[in-house]
């Protein structure tokens, strides 16, 4: 074992000198290329770059590129090709990324890797202090350092190079590389590996593994090790650090206001607003009113919002916080205590001079359309023909708290509702602050996702998480706060629940504490998480932990798409006439044309892919999605359920209809290759859409990906009608229309209708769900219908077409 003494400058120089001549030459070439690259006459980097996606997507590029690589391999030996292949595999298939790499550094790292192993054989350890560092790790260190120091280098590429270097040296690769006779043998091995049919059999299993791991990943999340405790990230918030003084004689005022609100209970919107305006004016607020009208599914939603602004006594009107107390909550209950407490709080807030932000109190007539109209108008993104502009405004909204308090009597704790429209979430700091104030200062319980009495066990955590995911996936507004979130205004709704000892003043103090915290904010809430899954009020899973599960499910589609692309290029699935020119008779006997690939000489050219018809069908199906999207957003609500049932019935026959249409219009029926390409394009699009959707709305991407997982394994079964119809039936169950119907049935049963009324109840529920979706589309601006009809449904349609397809195999065989 060499001791540290052997490492001196002389030694380092000799180390450099002892590098094989080839390595030194490569370094020289690399420097020369780098210098050439400095002058911009011709772009060396583009010329020499290995870009994974260009290899796999451009038609025929893969083959030509591979030809180039093979010829390069003849010059530089297989040592370049192997890391290049590994790199392409890693970067494209495993990481799904697309980075260009330049070859030169790869060679250097490869040779360094070889050198590292050779050094290791003579000097196994480098002693630093008391640590024995194996000398073969030096190239890895170098790779890390180069990655850290030199921008734009490919760490993975370097690792591939080093890895290949290790591999080559572990066998007697020095001799191998020098011995020119060994090279063709190695080359042949690699080519055989590339043509190995086992390589093509792998992806379906990989795809299935992705799905299984994706689901298992999600189920692991509620475990203690995969979630974190919540914490306050924004130091300015200081939740629960102030004394709250709301109470005492404010209770008398509260009772009076509640009498006033009770007196207005059955009045119409305008009378209510007149009275509220009077109260606001006596308190000393500036009052504004706003008319709105929405049309959706044949219904008209109209009303008038009333809101009041407390101008911060010493503020400069640049920022504001909002207190919302809708006259009716999302369930349509009369928010009696909520309005009264909001009025009392408004009067109390007026007495303080410490506000740095204006306080806006909004009392919309309902919690769904009215508040949306107000928020839209505040940000001037309203449709001015039906929604009035706001007469008075304040500054940027920094946060919003809604009170939903129809509950009578004393309460046990607050239910914090946080889901926003389209599955967007408020900053976690806001939820944490309220939790902190409620639990720490007020001694109240707090709950999320309607899970009262959380046992802190796996079951409850999973239920809470799944409920959160359901709300996120549906993307609907669950409270008056939801409409604020798309405008990057963090908002929550507080609902007192349960029977306990807290009274209205307790809720008032909670709101006061929250407002004091928000008032402290110097910057917009930005510190904490915007993407999270709450599994408990004080435990969460952050995006880095949960995202892989949806991504894995999306990746399974991409893997299958790539496999199908490769398969569609393989000889045997294409036109029999073309095949017969290349193949000898005996190889044609092979059924799928896969086995013969191995036996085939590597010089055989790839077949031409007929991409236009499949591509056309896939694009047409995606555009066809606009049809149901239009129908279900523009039908009067009483026709929605019948229309939907009719559409579902039609939907069963849609795939065969499309198949017949294509087969009858084109000159010859679709070939197996075209079916492969059809499915390939469809899955590629689905994978792409879902992986990008996963970053916006994780739950929706996960749910859609999971339900459409059978599409990955759909393929034509021309020989076995049982398989064909069996799989078609499975796909029918997993269709978007069935999913909606099943969802409606589950929802109806949860509402408790049974027996004879079940069918009617189901129809009502269906109509409710569909009109809700149309309402979401028209009022909240939901994009979920687009995902269902223009992403999911077309993918399903193409999948079903592929399953039902019967490419003419007999003709191929007879050729």
């Amino acid at each position, binding site marked *: 074992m060499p001791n540290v003494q052997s490492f001196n400058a002389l030694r380092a120089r000799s180390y450099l000198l002892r590098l094989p001549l080839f390595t030194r030459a490569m370094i020289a070439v690399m420097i020369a290329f780098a210098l050439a690259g400095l002058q911009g006459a011709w772009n060396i980097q583009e010329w020499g770059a290995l870009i994974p996606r260009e290899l796999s997507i451009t038609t025929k590029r893969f083959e030509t590129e591979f030809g180039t690589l093979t010829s390069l391999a003849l010059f530089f030996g297989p040592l370049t090709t192997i890391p290049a292949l590994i790199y392409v595999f890693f970067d494209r298939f495993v990481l799904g990324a697309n980075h260009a790499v330049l070859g030169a550094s790869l060679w250097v790292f490869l040779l360094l890797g070889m050198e590292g192993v050779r050094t290791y054989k003579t000097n196994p350890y480098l002693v630093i202090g008391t640590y024995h560092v194996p000398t073969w790790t030096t190239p890895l260190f170098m790779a*890390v350092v180069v990655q850290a120091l030199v921008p734009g280098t490919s760490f993975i590429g370097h690792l591939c190079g080093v890895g290949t270097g290790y591999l080559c040296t572990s066998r007697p690769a020095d001799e191998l590389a020098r011995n020119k006779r060994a090279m063709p043998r190695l080359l042949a091995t690699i080519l055989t590996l590339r043509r190995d049919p086992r390589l093509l059999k792998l992806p379906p299993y990989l795809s299935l593994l992705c799905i299984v791991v994706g689901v298992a990943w999600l189920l692991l999340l509620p475990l203690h090790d995969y979630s974190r405790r919540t914490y306050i990230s924004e130091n300015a918030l200081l939740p629960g650090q102030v004394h709250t003084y709301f109470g005492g004689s404010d209770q*008398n005022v509260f*009772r009076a*206001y509640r009498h006033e609100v009770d007196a207005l209970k059955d009045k119409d919107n305008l009378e209510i607003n007149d009275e509220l305006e009077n109260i606001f004016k006596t308190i000393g607020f500036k009052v504004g009113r706003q008319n709105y009208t929405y049309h959706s599914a044949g219904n008209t939603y109209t009303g008038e919002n009333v809101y009041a602004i407390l101008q911060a006594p*010493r503020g400069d009107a640049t920022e504001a916080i909002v207190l919302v107390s809708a006259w009716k909550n999302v369930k349509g209950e009369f928010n009696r205590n909520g309005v009264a407490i909001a009025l009392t709080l408004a009067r109390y807030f007026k007495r303080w*001079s410490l506000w740095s932000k204006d306080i806006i109190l909004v009392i919309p007539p309902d919690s769904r359309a009215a508040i949306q109209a107000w928020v839209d108008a505040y940000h001037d993104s309203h449709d001015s023909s039906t929604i009035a502009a706001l007469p008075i405004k304040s500054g*940027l909204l920094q946060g919003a708290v809604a009170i939903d308090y129809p509950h009578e009597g004393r309460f046990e704790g607050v239910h914090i509702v946080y889901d926003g429209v389209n599955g967007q979430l408020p900053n976690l700091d806001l939820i944490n602050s309220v939790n902190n104030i409620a639990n720490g200062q007020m001694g109240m319980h707090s709950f999320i996702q309607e899970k009262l009495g959380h046992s802190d066990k796996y079951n409850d955590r999973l239920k809470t998480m799944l409920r959160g995911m359901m709300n996120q996936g549906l993307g609907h507004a669950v409270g008056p706060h939801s409409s604020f979130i798309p405008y990057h205004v963090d908002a929550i709704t507080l609902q007192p629940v349960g029977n306990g000892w807290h009274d209205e003043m307790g809720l008032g103090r909670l709101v006061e504490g929250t407002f004091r915290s928000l008032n402290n904010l110097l910057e917009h809430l930005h510190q904490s998480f915007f993407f999270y899954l709450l599994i408990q009020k004080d435990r969460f899973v952050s995006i880095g932990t949960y995202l892989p599960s949806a991504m894995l499910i999306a990746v399974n589609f991409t893997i299958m798409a790539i496999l199908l692309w490769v398969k569609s290029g393989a000889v045997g699935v294409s036109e029999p006439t073309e095949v017969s020119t290349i193949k000898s008779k005996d190889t044609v006997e092979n059924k799928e044309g896969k086995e013969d690939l191995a036996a085939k000489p590597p010089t055989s050219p790839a077949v031409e892919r007929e991409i236009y018809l499949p591509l056309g069908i896939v694009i047409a199906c995606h555009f066809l999605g606009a049809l149901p999207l239009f129908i279900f957003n523009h039908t009067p609500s009483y026709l929605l359920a019948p229309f939907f049932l009719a559409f579902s019935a039609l939907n069963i026959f849609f795939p065969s209809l499309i198949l017949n249409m294509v087969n009858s219009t084109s000159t010859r029926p679709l070939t197996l290759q075209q079916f492969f390409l059809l499915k390939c394009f469809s899955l590629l699009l689905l994978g792409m859409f879902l992986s990008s959707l996963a970053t916006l709305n994780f739950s929706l991407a996960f749910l859609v990906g999971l339900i459409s997982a059978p599409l990955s394994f759909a393929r034509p079964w021309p020989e076995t009608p049982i398989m064909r119809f069996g799989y078609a039936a499975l796909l029918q169950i997993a269709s978007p229309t069935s999913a909606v119907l099943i969802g409606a049935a589950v929802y109806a049963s949860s509402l408790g209708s049974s027996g004879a009324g079940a069918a009617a109840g189901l129809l009502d529920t269906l109509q409710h769900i569909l009109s809700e979706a149309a309402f979401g589309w028209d009022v909240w601006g939901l994009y979920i219908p687009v995902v269902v009809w223009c992403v999911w449904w077309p993918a399903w349609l193409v999948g079903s077409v592929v399953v039902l397809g019967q490419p003419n195999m007999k003709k191929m065989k007879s050729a």
Partner: protein
Amino acid sequence: MKLRLRQGCAGWSFSLPILGRWDAESWGARPWDGTKEGGTGVELWAWLQADTEDEADLKWLTLTNALSGLFCASLNFIDETRTTRPVMSFQPEGDHGSSLDNLHLLHGVLPHEIVCTENLTPFLKLLPCKGKAGISSLLDGHKLFDASWQSMAIDVRPVCPEGQECVLQIEQTIDMVLDIERSKRPRGYTIPRPPPGHDLKCNATKPYHSGDTCFPSDFAEGQDWSIDQIFGKFLKGTCPLTDPDVPPVCIHVPERRDIFTTANAVELKNPDGLSRCYQVPSDEQFSMILPRMSRDGDNAKTIEDETVEPETPLLYAERSFTGHGQERGGVQFILTNPSPDTSVEFVYMESLPWFMRIYLHTLKARVEGQSGANDGIIEEIYYRPALDRARGTQLELRVRIPPASTVFLTYDFEKSILRYTEYPPDANRGFDVAASIITILPSTSLDAPPSRRKISNLRTTSLLLSLPTPDFSMPYNVIIFTSTAIALAFGGLYNILVRRFVGANEGPETAAGLKGLLAQLVKRLSTKFKGAKGKTE
């Protein structure tokens, strides 16, 4: 004043940040027609005598730095990007004689500056009695900065009496709007705890009124207050250096309002019946008490007896952002002319930061109730486009608003992405956009009322512009990670590579101290010399 002699400064106005915003609906027209106040943040404008623009810039730099030290305000941060040269908006005050030609007007504003007690002290120091006597003895940081609206300004202008040398006149103004209920809270008990139930002022006419249910009526009732209640102390006489003919305390109230004062104060009633003044003995404490006036009973008083209806302002102005998102936005400017018969002509000046790139072609004017744009009401546009990182946008519009109408001025802008280092530490707060300044031009008609014959000013509130902001924690993490990696891997390896480790007994024996150093130096030189010699051979 030394400032002028040194800088050729022909008068300047400086306003410290105002607090709060003027509530024109409730409080009416602004004090001094708005000419003695700035916007949110500190504002400075000056007429400088200079032959060239560069000379003016240099003098401006000196002035801002001098005032910055004088008033403990960050005026030195007014750089070229925040400086504009208004063309139509400001008029020089005082006597300038024939030198108007080479006067340069420069205007700068720092919208995010906040007023502080450290600004009050230098302000009071400029007074002859330094806040020890007279009305300035009431000025106290706690009360001043608890006001609902507060403004401090200093104007300096040259005055040239006939046949005498020119002198500079300095005028200091403080305006406050106080919330009486809030100010009456005694010091130390500023927390607005709910009052005991029996102290609540209730509306007893409500049917549900009872001991535990009270509909509050405290805002509808009349006010009662006194100077010592509101300011927490008495007025300490008058400053002996002031003009004895000018009464120090005046109050605008109707004639029927009861006012009691401390002894020896002389009441002087204004003939118009809307105001009265008090002469205060120079060495006595003074206070006045305005009792609650009973609204019922034999001698019932109404609200008209208690307060004077505030004067209607000539123009209401409100500015706000429209749109959302990180890329584009818009500004909407709502102007209302309350007068039923006269149109209002004014200059609207906006000085915007350079990162707010406005599209001038989107500038539209629309009169409420009329469909389509009505660009005819914009009479003149002066526009000086921004240069990135060098100067901001300056936009001046001369607009005439017809009587009894509301005008919407809108324009769109694009938000630029700043460089990493250009963000302030609180980047996510947003960037303040200075208040726009409205100068209402004097009416030219002969029968205009006196309030219309002079220039008056108006300022909107400032705005908060949120720009696309990078996640600053990420570069920080990357820097830390990279530094650690280099320090551990690279540093350690390098250290081992260049150092020769030998046993302590094997090392060369070196003499300690200076002698040893010298010996080493000689040795090194000799080897070098030998080496060079070897090469030449």
